[in-house]
């Protein structure tokens, strides 16, 4: 089918995905999007993309399949020790002082994918003897990713970004060609399914000292970014901090958060 003939199908499918999960695909991404959807629709038993669309829209099993599709589309590019400096800063600058002040701080990893980010945080907290005194919440829109995270079993690619040898040796072991994380770390994380674009999901999180939402906003339109940031901000305690990816910036959105920098790590504070 030609590009022009596929355009209406692309328009309605991508609109459905964006409505559900905020992921935005422009015309330049049509081929990539349809290729991935075609693979998923084939697995669901549909040769025709239009038939698949109507299944998503009208069949009682459609919403669940839409979740699967979204999970399939989201590129879970995460690995252990990614952007480690930011995670160290979180522990040293925000969490340790809060614990010393007698509080039980909360950290929310808001788009954790297969869990390498919250588990890396757990390693750092454990290294400083803080793991038991912190509430660590990890969420993602993809049930499939969360299920994978809970197994504690990862491919070797999850160590591809370079790593802290001491931490890796202490908390990760190789087993049958895969990596296995210590059960104590898995148990320290509360895993939840949360759609950042659904207010009914985010408003149940509760106030957090630190929220991480890294390398997700790039998939959203600007309007969606503003809405998501507003929701995340509402779950931040006064003086709490939001961390986004190193290539992401909120400055052009004029949010209620103030941009700060410490040790070359940028973050956004909810000014009290």
């Amino acid at each position, binding site marked *: 089918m030609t590009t*022009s003939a596929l*355009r*209406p199908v692309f*328009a309605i499918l991508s609109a459905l995905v964006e409505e559900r999960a905020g992921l935005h695909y422009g*015309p330049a991404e049509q081929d990539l999007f349809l290729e991935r959807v075609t693979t998923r629709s084939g697995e669901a038993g549909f040769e025709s993309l239009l038939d698949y669309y*109507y299944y998503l829209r*009208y069949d009682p099993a459609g919403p669940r399949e839409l979740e699967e599709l979204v999970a399939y589309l989201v590129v879970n590019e995460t690995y252990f020790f990614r952007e480690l400096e930011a995670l160290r800063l979180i522990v040293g600058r925000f969490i340790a002082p809060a614990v010393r002040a007698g509080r039980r701080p909360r950290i929310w990893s808001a788009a954790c994918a297969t869990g390498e980010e919250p588990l890396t945080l757990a390693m750092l907290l454990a290294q400083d003897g803080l793991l038991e005194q912190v509430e660590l919440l990890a969420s993602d829109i993809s049930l499939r990713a969360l299920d994978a995270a809970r197994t504690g079993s990862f491919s070797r690619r999850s160590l591809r970004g370079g790593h802290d040898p001491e931490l890796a040796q202490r908390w990760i072991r190789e087993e049958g060609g895969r990596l296995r994380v210590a059960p104590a770390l898995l148990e320290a994380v509360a895993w939840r399914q949360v759609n950042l674009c659904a207010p009914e999901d985010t408003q149940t999180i509760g106030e957090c000292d630190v929220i991480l939402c890294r390398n997700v906003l790039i998939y959203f339109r600007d309007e969606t970014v503003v809405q998501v940031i507003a929701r995340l901000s509402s779950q931040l305690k006064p003086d709490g901090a939001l961390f986004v990816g190193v290539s992401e910036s909120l400055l052009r959105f004029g949010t209620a958060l*103030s941009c700060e920098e*410490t040790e070359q790590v940028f973050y956004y504070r909810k000014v009290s």
Partner: protein
Amino acid sequence: MSVRPPLALTEAEQQRLAEARRLAALGATGLTGLLAMLSDASWAVRRAVVAALAELGDASTGALCVSLRTQRDDEARISAVVDALVSSPAEVLAEVSVLARDPDPAIAADAAQILGRRRHARGVPILTALVAHADDNVAVAAIEALGRIGGPSAVETLVAAAQSGNFFRVFPAIDVLGRSGDPRAIGPLAELLSNPMYLLEAARALGKTAQAASVVPLSRLLSHPSEATLRVATLALAELHTRHRERYGSDEAPAAALRKTGTGATAVPRLVRSLSNAAPEEREAIAVILGVIGGDAAAAALSGLLDSPDAPAALTAATALERLGRHSDMHVGEALRQGNSLRRRVLLPIISRSSIAADVVECLTDGDPQVRALACEALARTAAGQYVPMLFPLLADPSAQVVQAAIGAIQSLGSTETKRLALQSATDTNPAVRRNGLRILGYFGFAEALPIFIQALNDADPRITDLALSGLAYLELPEALDVLLSAAGAPLERTRRAALRALGQVPRQDPRVYACLIAAFADPEAWVRYYACQAAGNLGLTDATLAIVQLLSDDAGQVRVAAVEALSHLPNESALEALCRVAEGEEPDLRRAALIGLGLAKRPEGTPRLLEATRSSDAATRLVAISALAESSAPERVSALAHAAQDEDENVRAAALGFLGTDADPAATGILLELLSDSNDQARIVSLLSRPGAGRVSALLTKLAATDDEGANLYCSLLARLRTPEASMALLQTLSQGELGTRKAAAVALASLRTPEAVAAVRQAATHDADARVRQICSILLSH
């Protein structure tokens, strides 16, 4: 640990900002107050004041010009005034022209900057005069302003500046001359290559001219002793090729000029040696030039670049190798056979020659699934059917992408072995291979597959049963239809569903099919009813119209939509009436399906609803409406497409532009040309206008009859890109009969064609044109 203060305004700044907004809200009454705030210490406040003053338009122009002339003790203030005059929507040319003649050079320079930043084409004569100003700063400001405005009008003045020997004027003039694209700039720029002070800048500028005549002076630099000069020359040559292709649709003219210089023998070894220390963009440029020069050494070097860590250079090297054609087969083949997955990923997408098919086959067993998939696609492009048997093992590949690519290649290539191997696959012990074998059998409709399909109906894997039913539809055998009709009444919902879907594809209309579908409309399962509707529509069963109309009230949404889609294929009044009704409804999916149906029906009754839908708040509905309108012959469609071409939704815009590009109405070309100047989709519009279409040439000639020099360059380059006899005739006609500006542009465009007629016409004009400038340009174009 360091902590910077947050990025926020102080309370005092916020108050002053509020004051600026208050004054802005007063309109012209707030002018005095706003002018007083132009010296505010805060950048944020000054920005707000500048914006407010600009918005006042005519009301602020005079006061701003007075301020620029009389209040010159604060640089920040001056800068703010200039910014306000640049941004103002008012017509400021008259007032700014007065400033340009001010005896104070600083004021004249500011005036030049304003004209340049406003891209004021009517300011060109003023700026041309300022280039000769006694003060260097004014001259430089004027030269830079001309550079912003663009266009060939000021070339003679700029050439004089470039030849002035005054460093402060020569330098900015070099860059502007390069971007002018005027062939008359080439000689003076080439002269500057002999001056070490200007060599590199002049080389870069020659690259920007996009003229094949610049190739000769640049090619001499490929043997310059300095490696830095070699690199700059290579970058410039690569840029020249790119710009020429963007402008005229092909880079063959500069490529031929470069090959003709014969510098390959000395240049290639030097270029290859310089690869090791080259920056990424330099490697990319070297790849381009090696691909143009060609030869064994160049091909070998390009093969080496396939492993480049930066993707653009690797991709460029692959494209360059493909450009070398059969001369590079040995190197391409070796690169495939011995290359790693990374190299193969870069090379496979550009392969299409059957001479390399054997090497492509080697890639079918690569460890990288993407390489295996690309190899399947490449093999299909080579049309080398003798390798089809090598694709069948991939039906068991663990990667779905590879399997899809392999099936696609098998279907596309066909061969005498396909039937045997597909029949064998369809009975494989591996269910995945069986499924894929059935797909292939269904695609080709081999009659020998009948017993296999029938046997597969009892397979434990329901997907195999589905595929078997689907394949039976294409066998054109009475027994196959019998099986399908029987399956349509099976106890299992999934079987009934698949059978009805398949019945929509049967090639002949058997009365039993009609009865089967009507019965299925009452099936308790929604998806069975859905596929029954779909089948009825595909088979064009007009007798089922009323039964399908009843399904518009079905409880299941997908059945309602399927009913609408089925009605779209039934050319009768009942169907049309139902479609019109649904097209005005509230359910978005039904409405869209009905709009598509109205488009297919091509009946005038549908047009008002389609036009109404082009104004829907839902982008997907607008998209479907314009797609449907584009297929119709409604006279209103072109204006609707024109409106949609400026839609806020990029999908709608892209679709509308695409339809305008292929519309048979000559007015569509006119609309695309109007959109060209304002649109964010300029590159796309140029691409659409480069394809032959109804009324293209006459529309371009109409534009040429009333345009300026810059417009003439654009329209003549579009004519050149068409590459049709009619377009060539138009250029020849323009060269012989057009106004001065269009004759210059036509000469350049004809030179890019390199046809004997074009060259002869340019040669004729070089000696006989009435204007010396045209004769000069033509001589330059013929000089390489």
